[in-house]
């Protein structure tokens, strides 16, 4: 028990170090701006006075280390600064968007995880069948597709019939069912994006185990294939499956950016893309940090859950 906690605490510590390192990189990236950031944002016509005032507003007259500590402290307290383009409070700007993005990601995750695991199990159960081959081909080709192609194919197929809206206009007054309905197409796109990989890995994890001696033993006892796969193979395949699920949830974080743009969904990804073209450094910094933190957390969870579900990982060599 003790060694288990030690492994987890070590992994958590590593996660925190990574978080700090990543926040430094995101901060430093902005420092690398060629020339003067204030000059670039204000444009060529700005007078030296306005540039000086703007520099002060951004705090560029103070040393980098103090600015980093201020910035990082602000992030921890939820004080994200003021957007350059709209002059609005960034916390206010992103609050509802974070919620929307999480809603979309959770929606996609809730459909895709059970779907992927059951399809993967079925493919393992009926190895070599038409279903298995179909699963294989679909997963190989969906990995090769740009997200926007999947999204527009869905739009092409489903929206013409008028069943689902092609733009996800979310308003705060909507009821939960309405939200589910309006965001169905983006959620389905994300589901398609991540299901393939999870399904393939679930199948691989199960098939890997089927060669072990204890499975052969179960077969010789005369157990049914369904029982062998569900009761004997699945529990042991849980570690890699949980791992791949968490990795795909982390992948959702980036997949969400393109999908939000396709469906004009008012989420954090859309805000990030808008801010990149406006070169709103402050918003881009905050959004990148939030995405990076979520990504690191999911990877951390993946490691911790696989340690918990696989006793062999508790004793690092």
């Amino acid at each position, binding site marked *: 028990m003790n060694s288990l906690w030690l492994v987890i605490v070590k992994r958590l510590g590593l996660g925190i170090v*990574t978080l700090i*390192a*990543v926040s430094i*990189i*995101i901060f430093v*990236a*902005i420092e*690398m*701006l*060629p020339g003067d950031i204030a000059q670039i944002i204000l444009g060529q016509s700005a007078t030296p006075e306005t540039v000086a005032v703007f520099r002060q507003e951004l705090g560029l007259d103070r040393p980098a280390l103090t600015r980093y500590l201020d910035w990082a402290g602000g992030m921890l307290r939820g004080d994200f600064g003021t957007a350059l383009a709209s002059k609005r409070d960034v916390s206010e700007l992103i609050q509802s968007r974070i919620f929307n993005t999480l809603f979309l990601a959770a929606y996609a995750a809730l459909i895709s995880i059970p779907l992927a695991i059951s399809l993967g199990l079925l493919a393992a159960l009926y190895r070599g069948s038409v279903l298995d081959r179909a699963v294989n081909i679909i997963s*190989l*080709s969906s*990995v*090769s*597709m*740009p*997200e*926007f*192609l999947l999204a*527009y*194919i869905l*739009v*092409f197929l489903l*929206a*013409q019939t008028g069943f689902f809206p*092609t733009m996800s206009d979310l308003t705060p007054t909507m009821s939960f069912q309405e939200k589910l309905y309006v965001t169905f197409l983006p959620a389905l796109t994300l589901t398609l994006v991540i299901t393939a990989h999870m399904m393939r890995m679930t199948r691989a994890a199960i098939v890997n185990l089927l060669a072990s001696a204890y499975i052969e033993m179960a077969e010789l006892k005369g157990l049914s294939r369904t029982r062998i796969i569900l009761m004997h193979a699945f529990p042991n395949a849980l570690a890699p499956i949980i791992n791949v699920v968490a990795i795909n949830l*982390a992948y959702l*974080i*980036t997949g969400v*950016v*393109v999908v939000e*743009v*396709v469906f004009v969904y008012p989420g954090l990804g859309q805000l*990030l*893309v808008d*801010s*990149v*073209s406006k*070169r*709103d*450094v402050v918003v*881009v*910094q905050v*959004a*990148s940090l939030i*995405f*990076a933190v979520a*990504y*690191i957390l999911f*990877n951390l969870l993946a490691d911790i859950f696989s340690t918990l579900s696989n006793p062999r990982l508790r004793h690092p060599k």
Partner: protein
Amino acid sequence: MARNFLKILKTAPPSSVFGMVVIAIYILVAFFAPLLAPYSQTEIVDAEFMPPSAEYWLGTDNLGRDMLSRIVYGARNTVGIAFFTTILAFLVGTTLGIFTSIKGGWTDQILGRLVDTLMAIPSLIFKLLLLTVFGTTIINMVLIIALVDSTRVFRLARAVSMDIVVMEFIEAARLRGDGIWRLVTREILPNAAAPLAAEFGLRFCFVFLAISALSFLGLGIQPPLADWGSMVRDNASLIAFGEFTPLIPAIAIALLTIGVNFVVDWMLHRSSGLKD
């Protein structure tokens, strides 16, 4: 040598033959784009959003340019830029990877930790961040994607080269007094060729998809150059009306990626020494 190569090609499974045919067609189209395209990629030939006709096989786009011509030129622009970017990422990644595996010690530790940290940031987000900093031009995009993806190449090149560096023939070459250049080109690279070639194919797919995604978001290849990602974006409004043509550039992207994947799959299979 050439006959040997042909013999190997004959053993290719149908999926990888399909992949190679797709790749060959794309290369031909890219080279002969000016001959194949009926119009220029930037010329406005008619009204906007003309439906397909004998004159414009795939209709015209949101500015009245010929869709077919732009798709043909897209093979040159999008694939060409992606190919160049991949080469750049490879030069940086393999050079540093092999170098640190020979050198070891502190250089290896520091570069390794730096790459670990860079890889902890989702790659699309990191690219968007750097594009904000340096501005959205084609050259910046190429350099940024090459830099971010070179971290992945570095990882692989270092791992592969690490396995080779500890071998006895390297020891022998060192004792013979071979310089580092000769060591890398004569001993390490030939032995690392198979995994590196496979990685090149996969990396190309990722780079190609990343460029398409950025261009689709309006942050990559800029108009008036014809490019598949931005073509989808420009004409997307038609899709909801049941028009299929805006999907063609996106399908062109997917088809090439699938083709390359099939070929890489076969290469990996061959080099792993599995017969079946």
